[in-house]
Structures are given as structure tokens and as C-alpha cells.
């Protein structure tokens, strides 16, 4: 019976069944929404909205927008190639005068300095100078204070920064910049970030591969042992899992350092020491150790659901042990492998403390740079653009993975 037919049927109290059904349905839906709402709000408030606010910082000229309005107006008809006219200089002087009084000139100077290194001191000097000036001519004062004020590039940067939005941080996050004639690559000795992304994905991929190779046999062992023995073995997997990441990383630091126990042993056995700490090797080793349970557990829980009778059936039908494993058992573990590897890969992309503690300068990943721009340089825009770029690349990879493997095939147990 379809809903259309139900419309003509009436319930005992005379209300059409269709409406009755819709009411019941609505109630059920409300209940479902009510149950999901707390988590949904929690995610929106604590996760999505900060993410959005931070991402906005990567496209906005927070430090300069609204503080260089006069200059922007005066530069509106400027060609961008030659020296701006007196009106533009006077407008900048007026903007800086006000900014100087409100203690905002430092922020403006810092923002311009991102794109025009050296501008900071020039802004500082000129802000002090124009504060004492009543009238012009400003152009001559600017030019006699510093020749850089005659550089159209500086004025292009000021013009760019006076608008509400900027592409600077995003371009910079992929080693590009706005040149005189369109977007260009930054000079090789300034190109850092593409290399860092490549490194981040390579390390995450390698760690994922290693945890799979190491974790798969252990998961198999755990899944096929009798429960009493498997439980004891499981403790060995879970104990490190329950230990804090920082503690485990520090433990690796102690183990791997030049005067550490591993090197003492090497000294005793073969008479020489190895450089292990502050290397890529140490980073991969520590990360693999930390990530191992994340790959292993989904595989294990999927393996637990595979009936042993499948392999027995394959064997009794004449398959050798390898063939039975490869053709019958292994394909059934793939959803677990997919889940475990994806989990480890995505977690590894965001590693920060482990490379910082046991890795060398060539092993620092994107997060280390985000932290650096956030904490030390106080350039929130750049930090945000770097983080957002990583997020986008990860989402693209996830999408590709979904197209190739299918996310519905993934199983956590």
C-alpha cells in the first residue's frame, strides 16, 4: 500500500492515516535530531567555527584593512609602474599619523614587511617623522628619508595590503608570490613549503607502510590465538597505546641519543657509535612505534570476524596454505587494512612533537611550521594558510581514496 492510498484510509479517531503516519514520522525524526544535536553543536562550536575563523585570517588583511583607506583611495587611479603622486604620499602620511597615535603603525609595518622585507624600519622612521609634520610636501620628505619610498614595488605592496582580502598567504604557502607581471615562483632560496609538504606526505606514507608490514602479522597472530593467550599478547599492544605520546617520544630520545643504551651496546659489540638521534631514521622509528596500534587494531577487529572455516574450506578444496591465505583470507581483511592505514596516514600528517624532539631540521613537518608562524613570528595568516593547505590536500587524498577504494568498504571492526 503506498502513501497515496493511505491518504484515503482513516484511523479510528477520524484522522487520515497519512497525517497520522507523518506525525509519527516527525516525532521519530525530532527524537533523532535531539540525540544528535548535542554532538553536532559541540563539533560546530569547538571545531568548525574556530577552523573557519582561522581560515578567514589567511585571506584577510587584518593588520592593515581600514587603516590605510586614504592611501587606497589616492592610489586608485595609479598606474602601478611609476612613482605615485604627492596626493598618495600625503594620504599615506595622514593614515600613518592616525595609526601612530593609536599604536597601530607597528602592525601595519609588520604586514608590509612580509612582502617587502626591510619595510618595517622604513615605516617606523617615517611614522615618527610625519607625526611631527603639519603640512607637506610629503613626497620629498619620504624620498629624502629613504630611497625605498621611490620603489613602485613597495607601493604595490601597500596598495595590495590596503584591501580587505589578500592572496599573499595562500600563494606563499605554495611558494608563489605576486610579481610585477602576475604570479611567479619565489626564488629557490626562499622556497620552503612545497618541500615541507612533500616531506610530510612521504614521512606519513612511509610510517603507514611500515605499521602495516609490522602490524599485519601481529594482528593475525592475535586473531588466531586462543582467547587466553591472545589477551596476554594484547596487553603488549595496548600498554604502549595507553602511554602518552610525549612520554614515548622522550623514551626514544633517551634510547637513541649518542650516549644512550643502544649506542653503548653498539660500542660494546662493534666498537663504534651511530648518529641516530636528530635524524629521519629516528623520526620514522618513533612515529612507527606510536602509530602501530592505530593500524593494528582495525585489522585485528576485522580479522576476528572472519570465520576460520573459510580457510579450512579452501584447504579442503585443494588450495595450498599460501593460496588459501591470499585468495580467501586476505581479501576479507582489506576493509580493516584500509581503515587502519587511512587512520595512521591522516594522524601522521599532523605530527608535531615527535619530529620536533627526535628529528633533525630536515625532518620537520607542516605542523612544525604552523607552530613556528603562530608562536614565534606571530603571523597567524601564514600559519592558517599552511594548515588549510594541508587540510585541503588531505581532503583531496581522501576523495581520491574514496573513488579508488570506496569509503563504504572501510571497516573499523
Amino acid at each position, binding site marked *: 500500500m503506498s502513501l497515496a492510498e493511505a491518504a484515503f484510509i482513516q484511523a479510528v479517531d477520524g484522522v487520515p492515516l497519512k497525517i497520522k503516519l507523518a506525525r509519527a514520522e516527525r516525532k521519530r525524526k525530532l527524537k533523532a535530531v535531539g540525540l544528535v544535536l548535542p554532538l553536532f553543536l559541540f563539533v560546530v562550536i569547538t571545531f568548525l567555527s574556530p577552523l573557519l575563523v582561522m581560515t578567514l585570517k589567511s585571506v584577510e588583511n587584518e593588520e592593515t584593512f581600514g587603516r590605510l583607506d586614504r592611501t587606497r583611495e589616492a592610489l586608485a587611479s595609479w598606474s602601478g609602474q611609476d612613482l605615485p603622486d604627492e596626493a598618495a604620499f600625503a594620504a599615506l602620511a595622514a593614515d600613518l599619523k592616525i595609526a601612530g597615535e593609536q*599604536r*597601530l*603603525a*607597528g*602592525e601595519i*609595518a*609588520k604586514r608590509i*614587511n*612580509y612582502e617587502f*622585507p*626591510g*619595510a*618595517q*624600519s622604513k615605516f*617606523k622612521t617615517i611614522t615618527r617623522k610625519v607625526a611631527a609634520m603639519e603640512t607637506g610636501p610629503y613626497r620629498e620628505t619620504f624620498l629624502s628619508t629613504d630611497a625605498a619610498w621611490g620603489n613602485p614595488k613597495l607601493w604595490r605592496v601597500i596598495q595590495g595590503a590596503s584591501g580587505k582580502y589578500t592572496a599573499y598567504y595562500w600563494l606563499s604557502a605554495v611558494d608563489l608570490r605576486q610579481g610585477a607581471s602576475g604570479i611567479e615562483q619565489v626564488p*629557490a*632560496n*626562499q*622556497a*620552503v613549503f612545497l*618541500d*615541507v609538504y612533500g*616531506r610530510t606526505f612521504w614521512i606519513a606514507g612511509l610510517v603507514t607502510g611500515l605499521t602495516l608490514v609490522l602490524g599485519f602479522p601481529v594482528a593475525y597472530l592475535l586473531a588466531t590465538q586462543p582467547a587466553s593467550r591472545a589477551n596476554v599478547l594484547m596487553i603488549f599492544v595496548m600498554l604502549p597505546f595507553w602511554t602518552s605520546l610525549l612520554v614515548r617520544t622522550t623514551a626514544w630520545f633517551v634510547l637513541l*641519543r*649518542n*650516549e644512550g643504551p643502544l649506542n653503548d651496546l653498539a660500542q660494546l659489540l662493534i666498537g663504534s657509535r651511530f648518529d641516530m*638521534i*636528530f635524524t629521519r631514521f629516528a623520526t620514522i622509528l618513533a612515529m612507527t612505534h606510536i602509530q602501530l596500534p592505530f593500524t593494528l587494531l582495525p585489522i585485528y577487529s576485522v580479522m576476528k570476524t572472519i570465520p576460520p572455516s573459510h580457510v579450512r574450506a579452501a584447504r579442503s578444496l585443494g588450495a595450498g596454505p599460501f593460496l588459501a591465505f591470499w585468495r580467501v583470507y586476505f581479501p576479507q581483511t582489506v576493509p580493516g587494512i584500509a581503515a587502519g592505514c587511512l587512520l595512521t596516514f591522516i594522524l601522521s600528517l599532523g605530527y608535531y612533537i615527535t619530529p620536533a624532539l627526535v628529528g*633533525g*631540521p*630536515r625532518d620537520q613537518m607542516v605542523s612544525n*611550521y604552523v607552530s613556528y608562524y*603562530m*608562536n*614565534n*613570528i*606571530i*603571523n*597567524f595568516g601564514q600559519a592558517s594558510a599552511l594548515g588549510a593547505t594541508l587540510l585541503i590536500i588531505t581532503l583531496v587524498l581522501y576523495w581520491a581514496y574514496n573513488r579508488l577504494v570506496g569509503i563504504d568498504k572501510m571497516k573499523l571492526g
Partner: protein
Amino acid sequence: MKSELLIKALVASAAAACVFGVHSAKAAEPLTIVSWGGAYSDSQRKAYYEPYMKQTGVKITEEEYDAELGKLKAMKEAGNVTWDVIDVDSAHALSGCDEGLFEKLDYSKIADTSKFLPGTALDCAVGTIAYSTIFAFNADVYKDNQPSVLEDLFDTKKYPGKRALLKKPFGNLEWALLADGVPAGDVYKLLATPEGVDRAFKKLDTIKSDIVWWEAGAQPPELLANGQVVMTSAFNGRIGNAIKEGKNFKIVWDRQEFDWDYWAIPADSKHVEGAYDFIKFASDPKNMSQQSKYIAYAPTRVEAIAMVDPKIAPTLPTYPENMKTAVTTDLQFWADNNEDLTKRFNAWLAQ
């Protein structure tokens, strides 16, 4: 009527209690003081925090940082600044002031600016110590013919072994040029040109494979002590304390990079008056002269210098013998070029 009166009385006494309560709380408002940790914070605790807490009853909470003023900016944007006093290096003392992260200081609440050494009474920060970046070596490794000049830090043939440097271009580029034979007066002129920067990196290239990088001030003495490196750049006081603890390290004062550290009050701090009171206490010459007992940094007030134990004086960066070839870092240069050169430095590290 009676009950109304009773209520009124109750309300009045409650209000009085509130006022009194707030007032008495203010007298002993707790302070959160942020500094660099390790031996340096130890010295501040003994010289300032403990005596101050004893004298005033104010509870001081310590926090440790590595110049992460980003945290302060985030707190300020969120409208909840929990830091009250910060110990900042000179580069951040200037930039933090420009960016409005620090209060402009009212020196009438501390001491007259003329009482401080020239260059240490800034708009937003007041000097607390003079320190320097030196390099030190493990004297167990180099028993005879020990390193004595900056050039030795860059000479891996004469002095083989790993050396540790601060993982920043700041200070290292200057040393690279100085060790390459550039006279001290020309360093920044040269660094302002691309060729000069290339030259500095080229010099660093010669020892790159032997460098271990450190980030926090507490690391260099540890790296030296556990044999990770045989030489390291460091803040002189950290090495001084390790020597006091019996380590066989030696400091090379040649071309020491001389600098100041300051107290600053974060803008929007909730306990500005308390912060002033603490800074006044810590800037008192008698109290200031105490810190040198616990770490080999020199005071910034003229009267305090005279009060320092003469036995300690030769270990301080300000000792004339140590100051002979000292260089000072150009903060304006670094304000302009830090981000650019750091990018270049990071690209260089990754090569």
C-alpha cells in the same frame, strides 16, 4: 517594616563584605610570571620570586616559554590575558611594543630611567639582565691547545667534532661573517646585501654536516654534558651554572654577542598594578644584585653593578676582559629581515 529593615541591613552588610572582599583580594592578587625556564628561571626564583612572595604574600605562578608571543596575541584577541609579567629578549621587547602587545611603562612606578644603563629603559620594557651568546667547549675533549677565538668554532679540522648552534639565523649569520674575516663594523652592511647573506651561508656550509641545532636555552649544557656535541653556542649563564655544578666546560668570550633581557607587562593584563609592584621590587638595586649569585648575568642598574660580589664579576659578560671583542646585534636589522632570513635559513637547512 521590621523585616524590610532586616533585609536592608543584610544587603548592606553583604555589599560591604563584597567591597571588603574584593579589596582584600586585591592586596594579594596572584601574579603569573613568564620566563625562559631552566637555570635562568631558577635564578629568578631565588633572587626575586621567593623574597617577593615572602615580603608581600603575593602568590607567584611561573610559566615557561620560548618567546612564543603568539600565545599572548591569541590571549589578547580572546580577551583573556593570563600573563602578568614577561621576561622578554630585546628583539621581542621592541616588536611586542610596536604591535601593541605590551603596556607602555610608567617609569614613575618603577624607578627613574636615568638609573638604568643606557638602552635598557625602553618604552614597553625595562632591562633586568645583561647576557651574552658565547660558545663553550668540553675541556675533557680538548685538553691542550683549546679553542680560544670565534674562528675555532668554524674550524672542524683543528677541532673536529659536532657543534651545536641556535636554530635561528639570528646571531649565527653574524658569527659566520665575523669568522670569515669581516670586521665587526661591516657585518650588517654586508648582511643587508644578497651577496653578504650568501657569504654567511657559505661559511655555515663549511660546518653544516657537523651542526646539531638547539632551540631552548637549557639544551646546550645538556648537549655538552651528554657528549652529543663538543662545542656549542649558548647563553653564558647556562654554561656558567653547569661549570658551577662541576662540569668541565670552558667559555670562549671572543666576539660574544652581547644583549639584554627585559621585564614587560602584557597589554590587557589583569594585574597591572601588581605587575608594576613586582617589577619595582625586581629592579631595586639590592635585589637585582642578588641574581648574579645564582646565574652569571649582570644587572642593568648602575648601583646594582657596584653591589655584585667581586668574585663573581669575572664570570659576567660585562667584565672588561670579556667585553674586549664583544659585538652587539642590530635589532632593527632583524626586525626588518628576520622572517625573510628565517625562510632562507629553513630552505638552507632542508637542502
